[in-house]
């Protein structure tokens, strides 16, 4: 089955859990890191840099906050309205090195009850949705060392 990243260029090494990373960009002039990637212009107001290089973000971080979605979100969230709704968990993760907070869904099976602010988490490849022809891939956060 064809695997398609839900957004092209936001993560790399999709097939390899050990090398899987979110991809940001780093300004060649000032060194600022951006995610989602800024490719054309640096967004630091003190910098007029226009050359940014792709850079992988930290694989691990700590939980800044978390919540869940008990109701089915509207389109364009992909979900099959004929299936009963299964809530998913959303985690905001603070990356130490980049000093930024990045959102993501939690890996399947991770519930809000299994998370705590400050908990160590890691990035893992995930599946957002699949139909008969293709699989849309994404990133997930998971408590370090396996499912909660």
């Amino acid at each position, binding site marked *: 089955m064809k695997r398609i990243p*839900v*957004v092209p260029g936001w993560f790399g090494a999709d097939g390899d859990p050990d090398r899987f990373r979110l991809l940001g960009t780093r300004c060649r002039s*000032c*060194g*600022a*890191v*951006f*995610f*989602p990637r800024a490719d054309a212009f640096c*967004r*630091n*107001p*003190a910098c007029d840099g226009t050359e940014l290089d792709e850079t992988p973000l930290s694989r691990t971080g700590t939980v*800044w*906050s*978390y*919540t*869940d*979605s*008990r*109701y089915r*979100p*509207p*389109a*364009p*969230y*992909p*979900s099959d309205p004929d299936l009963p709704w299964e809530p*998913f968990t*959303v985690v*905001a993760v603070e990356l130490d*090195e*980049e*000093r*930024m*907070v*990045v*959102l*993501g*869904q939690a890996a399947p099976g991770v519930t*809000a009850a299994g998370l*705590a*602010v*400050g908990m160590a988490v890691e990035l893992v490849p995930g599946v*957002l949705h699949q139909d008969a022809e293709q699989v849309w891939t*994404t990133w997930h956060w998971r408590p370090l060392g396996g499912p909660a």
Partner: protein
Amino acid sequence: MTEDIAVLGAGMHPWGKWGRDFAEYGTVAARAALADAQLDWCDVRLVVGADTVRCGYPGHVAGATFARALGWQGARVSSVYAACASGAQAINTARAQILAGMADVALVVGADAAPKGFFAPAGGDRPDDPDWLRFRVLGATNPVYFGLFARRRMAQLGDTPEDFALVKVKNAAAGAANPNARYRKAVTAGEVAASPVVADPLRLLDICATSDGAAALVLSSMAFARRHGVAPVRIRAVSTVTPRYPRTALDLPDFATDSAALVPPPEVGFRASIAAAAYEEAGTGPADLDLAEVYDLSTALELEWYEDVGLCPVGEGAKLLREGATALGGRIPVNPSGGLASFGEAVPAQALAQVCELTWQLRGQAGERQVRAARCGLAANQGLFGHGSAVIAVR
């Protein structure tokens, strides 16, 4: 400091789910504001519409919709969109033209007929639009962000779901006394706790609904107000600042914050900077306030605003609430209108509705909701993509 402008009239169409066109609600509010100002529509030299977004474009392009509905009479027109901050931006557009001498009297109108359920992006694939992508990739509705903010407060500051419920109880009590509110019924903490969880830890009654509604203001120069023979409520400041880099507070519809690894974050965060700019422009501070209207998109967010507008130090919002200081009859009532908890969101109208409430409170016309001897009020709001504004009105 800039000069003051006068609020000559305030009017609303009651909030609800009426199933009619936004132009009708806006026209009702506009006529009410004109009647309140004791002015004729043909006296208005500028009409500013806070845009109603329809099909991904400003529906009917709002300013002109209201000018046409009231009858074309040649006034200047302007249409403004700034998401949930649209109404305050529309006030500021009118203010700038009044202070520049381009128009003596302006009518500002915002109206919406909201969809049922979650706010959702317009159809079609827009992979370059973060507001589309957050739904597509994360399923991150507005309540998902509100849930993240609420959980963060619980973990960092010790707020509890009971504190959040108390905000709803307080605002529902005020809204019950407001004839323009959609929900006019007292709510108990037990009812909040019994409502279903939408986005952990927030429940249905912690999160504001989406509504139909409209609000309008008639604004003028102080010179016109004097000629008109009134001592009006005055708008002393409108702040419309943008965030500063690096923006380290997560916000809708973002996937991530800026990185603070190289450039230290600003000392004052975005929401606090919105209020600070208004205080600076008005030459006032939080101690001068008699009341405030803030965007309680969720109960937990109202507590955050207490801290951001300087009613208490960071982390003490829940304490201020528990003391009863922000309830009607308290030291500094917040959302005496009933807030978004009682109105629901009608995006282009809600920042205008806040200033309607300030106007009625400062005139002593708020009935059962009246804040005693109110002289100075602040309204604060925030919209998607780094919009936010604060209005300070005095009498």
